[in-house]
Each structure stands twice: as structure tokens, then as C-alpha cells.
């Protein structure tokens, strides 16, 4: 979708190139994170895509079309643009702000009004309340949402986002990141996202391009970068706890194990036999009439001579298949348990994850990234 070919940007007042011989290919529908310290050339790289900055040499292609041949105004009208300070027009209402690009494109009034309301709803802002407000009446998070809505207004296939959540407090930032990821699942835009925050890059990116001194240091999926940092610099950006960060990428459904079940009428001995046969330590106990009752584990069966019903333990709080391993771990800590059940829908258990599974997933990942993929 977007392709950089040997792109160089040199400013007159600098000896070193701001962007040095960059080759980069961003696929359609992917979020590509440009990450690196200040002055690494990530913002310059992004701004060359919509020609806010002109490349000194090299070519940039969008859909195999050399952007040098495209009129900058036309090019920009088809590329969403979100910046850190939102850049909302303070003298215009929220609706007028969002309508900027449709107005420039000469859309029909009714169509614009419709689109504005649709976008406000998409951003979970009630059009009745927010349509006619001015940007100063909104909170930072709301303003940034309007910024994203404005960029999406004319439904551009490409979005450029320059540290859009950088100025927000951590809680709002996390919330907006989650919201945006959910939104992206629906809209599937090709997104170039600039950040200096490696954690954000790992969380948001389908691909991460790590840059330093205008050069591309490493390009790959978050997983590849976490498990195989190209050099010292990338490791340093990731920080000391790369393994912990990997836990943020893996979902429960990737490592959970299935769990057998047994009817409550069976004896303890029969349950024990089944456990040994399957080589597992836990088993769900069900009842034909009432469905899932609870579970029993190897230790309780070995120590007691009682009925299954007496040994039953409640399932307790569960995690969902989409929960990250990090959240699962913190759930285990807060529950004070070494096992937790995975439940996709109410009253059903899809699998089980133990502390050992978590350890294994993370340590495996350190050696090779194939396991998760």
C-alpha cells in the first residue's frame, strides 16, 4: 500500500540526513508503528507520505502510484491526519471541525450532517450534546476522539497519526488505545502511527519500524522485535522486561489447554482414573440437569475418600479467550490461585491456564517466536 524506496530527507541546515536511505513497505489494512527517540526521523518519515515534507531523493509509492506526480492537496484529502495537539480549529464547532475534509471535497450538506453524526456516535460522543460545542468545552480525551473522527470523515484508506495519544494521561491513553484498536477491526485502515513509546508500539502495531538517526534499525511484528531485538539499541528501547511485554501479546486462547469433564454421579476412583489416563490435573464436574457444577483436582482426589460432590470446588472468576497473559497473571495474583479457567461465554469453560503454562509460554518465546505464531 505504502512503499518507501531509498528515501532520503536532508535539511539544508544539517549535515546528517534526517531520514537516510529508507526502504519500507506498509501493507494494506495494517497498523505500522514508527518508533524511536526524538529526532530519529519518524515524524519526518510520516510527513513525507502526505507531502507535508518533501523527500530529497528516493520515491514513495501509494498503491504503486508515485506520490510526486500527485497534487499535494488531492493527496492529503485522501489521507486522514491526526496530530498530538489535535489541531482542532478552536473557532469552529465540533461538527464543523469534523466536516472539514467533506466540505473541502464539496459534499452535499445533508450527507455531511449525516456523516458527522455517524462519526460522533462511532466515537461514543452523543451528537445531540457535542455537535455544537466548541473544542474548548471538551476534555483532552474527547478532543482527541474528535481529532480521530475528523481524520476519518471522508473515509480515507490511509491514516497518519502523529503521537495522537501522547498528551493524554495514562488511563485515558489506555482507554483510547483500546477503543482505537476495536475501531480498526471494523474499519481496517492502513495506518502509519508515530510514537516514542515502545509499549504503545507493541500494543497497537501489526508491524513496528524502529528508527534511529534516520535509519531503519528493525522492522517486524511486535513479537519478532520483542523476541529477537536486532541490536543493543532496540533491546534498550524495549526495556529490561521484554518477557513481561511478550505476555501482553499472547492471548489466553493461544496457550489454554482443553479440560475434560465427568458426571457428578461417578465415583472418586473413576475420576482419578480419568485424570491419570488423560495426564491432566484438573477435571470439570458436570450434572446432566444443572450443567457445570465446578471442578476437582488431582490433589483433592488423592487425599480424600469421599463423593465427587463433596470435593467440588467452584469455578470462580474466569478470564476470556481474548485476555492477555499479563492480565491473566494479574488475575491469578489477585485471586491467589495458580490456575484460572477460560470462559468464552457464560456458564461454559473452554479451557484452563496454569501458572506453569504462563512460564512456559514466556520462556519458549524467548528462544523462538514460532510458538505463538
Amino acid at each position, binding site marked *: 500500500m505504502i512503499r518507501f524506496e531509498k528515501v532520503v530527507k536532508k535539511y539544508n541546515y544539517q549535515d546528517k540526513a534526517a531520514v537516510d536511505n529508507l526502504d519500507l513497505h506498509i501493507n494494506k489494512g495494517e497498523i505500522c508503528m514508527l518508533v524511536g527517540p526524538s529526532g530519529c526521523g519518524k515524524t519526518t518519515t510520516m*510527513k513525507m507520505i*502526505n507531502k*507535508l515534507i518533501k523527500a530529497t531523493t528516493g520515491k514513495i509509492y501509494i498503491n504503486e502510484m508515485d506520490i510526486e506526480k500527485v497534487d*499535494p*492537496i*488531492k*493527496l*492529503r*484529502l*485522501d*489521507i486522514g*491526519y491526526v*496530530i*498530538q*495537539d*489535535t*489541531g*482542532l*480549529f*478552536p*473557532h469552529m464547532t465540533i461538527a464543523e471541525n469534523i466536516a*472539514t*475534509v467533506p466540505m*473541502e471535497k464539496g459534499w452535499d450538506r445533508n450527507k455531511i450532517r449525516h456523516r458527522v453524526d455517524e462519526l460522533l456516535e462511532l466515537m461514543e460522543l452523543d451528537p445531540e450534546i457535542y455537535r455544537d460545542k*466548541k473544542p*474548548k468545552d471538551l476534555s483532552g480525551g474527547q478532543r482527541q476522539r474528535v*481529532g480521530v473522527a*475528523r*481524520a476519518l470523515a471522508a473515509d480515507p484508506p490511509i491514516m*497518519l497519526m502523529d503521537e495522537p495519544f501522547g498528551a493524554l494521561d495514562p488511563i485515558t491513553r489506555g482507554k483510547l488505545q483500546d477503543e482505537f484498536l476495536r475501531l480498526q477491526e471494523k474499519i481496517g485502515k492502513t495506518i502509519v502511527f508515530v510514537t516514542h513509546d515502545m509499549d504503545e508500539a507493541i500494543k497497537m502495531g501489526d508491524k513496528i519500524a524502529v528508527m534511529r538517526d534516520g535509519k531503519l534499525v528493525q522492522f517486524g511484528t511486535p513479537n519478532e522485535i520483542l523476541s529477537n531485538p536486532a541490536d543493543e539499541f532496540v533491546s534498550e528501547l524495549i526495556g529490561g522486561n521484554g518477557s513481561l511485554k511478550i505476555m501482553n501479546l499472547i492471548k489466553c486462547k493461544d496457550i489454554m489447554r482443553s479440560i475434560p469433564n465427568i458426571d457428578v454421579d461417578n465415583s472418586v476412583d473413576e475420576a482419578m482414573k480419568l485424570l491419570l489416563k488423560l495426564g491432566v490435573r484438573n477435571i470439570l464436574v458436570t450434572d446432566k440437569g444443572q450443567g457445570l457444577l465446578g471442578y476437582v483436582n488431582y490433589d483433592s482426589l488423592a487425599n480424600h475418600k469421599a463423593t465427587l460432590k463433596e470435593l467440588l470446588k467452584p469455578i470462580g472468576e474466569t478470564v476470556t479467550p481474548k485476555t492477555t497473559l499479563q492480565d491473566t497473571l494479574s488475575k491469578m495474583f489477585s485471586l491467589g490461585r495458580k490456575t484460572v479457567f477460560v470462559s468464552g461465554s457464560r456458564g461454559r469453560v473452554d479451557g484452563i491456564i496454569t501458572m506453569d503454562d504462563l512460564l512456559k509460554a514466556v520462556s519458549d518465546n524467548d528462544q523462538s517466536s514460532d510458538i505463538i505464531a
Partner: protein
Amino acid sequence: MTKAQTSSLRLRDVLSILFIISIGVAFSIYVVQYPQDRIVERFISYSKIINAILQHLYIVAISSALALLTSVPLGIILTRPRFKKYSTKVLTVVNIGQTIPSLAIVALFVGFLGIGSKTAILALWIYSLLPILNNTLVGILSVEPSVIEAARGMGMPTKRILYKIELPLALPIIIAGIRTAVTINIGTAILAAFVGGGGLGDLIISGNNVSRWQILMLGATLPALMAILADIVFGVVERRTII
């Protein structure tokens, strides 16, 4: 600002405007109806006062309008990237113009324009360039760079950015400049009388010549009241353009 605040402000402004007008009218009536003596009676009449006020307003209006029509475009040009580097130089030159005493400027222009209101208008024009130019520059340059960047990044052409973003956002500051210029001009326009341009300065000169305080005071008070009036009116306009 909430609605209640704006409306109460408006009421206060209306009351002060009425108050100032009534002082001026009352003083004029007093001077005309109860002249000190025959000399004053001969010099002052309602039509003379109204004529002087109209002349005064004419000089101020033309000179201020000229200043507006030159300063704002000049200010816009000086904020364009290509000419930005000249902005401080131009400001310095205009600043120097401002430091020359107004009477000197008026006298200077008599040299090649002769006497009459034209000379006064030209002098006042030069005098009011600075506040408007300065505020146009400051107003446009103080627009958040991120706002301009966003507009550019979304595909707004440069001209539309100027009309839709920069000028509306700079408007309150530009109007503040016009407010300063007009207020100063109303006071300075008294000097027009010294070059035969007429206006309320005539009353001061006549009052001085015939040593009658009533005439002199009228010539001094009316421009002062008009200046205060202009200040209030433009203040209201300025506030209404602030977002």
C-alpha cells in the same frame, strides 16, 4: 462565557454609552443655552457643534479606514513564509513613524500637501498604521502552529487556511489594534484644525483666541467623550469575536 454573562455585559456597555452621550449632549446644551456672554453666543450654535463633530468623524473615519486597508493586507503579506523575514524590519520602520510627534507629522505634510483635511487625514493614516499592522502580525502569528499543520495535513489550500483559520482566529487581536488606532485618532484629529482641516479642534482654537473657557472646554470634552465611546464600542465588538 455563559449567556447570562454576555447579556449583563451588554447592559453595562449600553448604560455607559448612554451616559457618555448624555454628558456630551448636556454640556453642549448648557453652552448653547447659557452662553457666558455675547462672544460665546456668536461663536457657538447647535449646527456649528454638529458640523464640527461630523468633520471630526469624517477625518477619523477616512484615516482609520485607509490604515485598515493598508495595514491588514500588509500584515497578511508579512506573515507569509516568503516575506516573514522582512516583518521585523517593516515593524521597526512603522515604529519609528510612531515616535515622531503627531504635530510634527501634520506640519511636515503641510509642506507638500498644503492645508486642508487631506493633510490631516494623511498624517493620521500614518499614525494609525502601527497598531493595526502590529496586531495583525501578532494575531496571525499567534495562531497555534498545530492548528495550521492540521489544516495543511488535511488538504486545505493555503488561501483557504488564511480565510477560514488564520484570519478568524486573529480577528479579536486585529480588532484590538483597530480599537487602539481609532481611539488615538479621535484625540489626534484635533490637530486637523491647525492645518485648516476643521473638526472639533476648531472649537479649541476659537476658544483660545477669544479666551472663552466654555468653547475651549467643549472642543476638548467632546473628542475625549468620543474616544471613550469608540473604545467601549470596539471593546464590545472585540469581545464578541473572542471564542
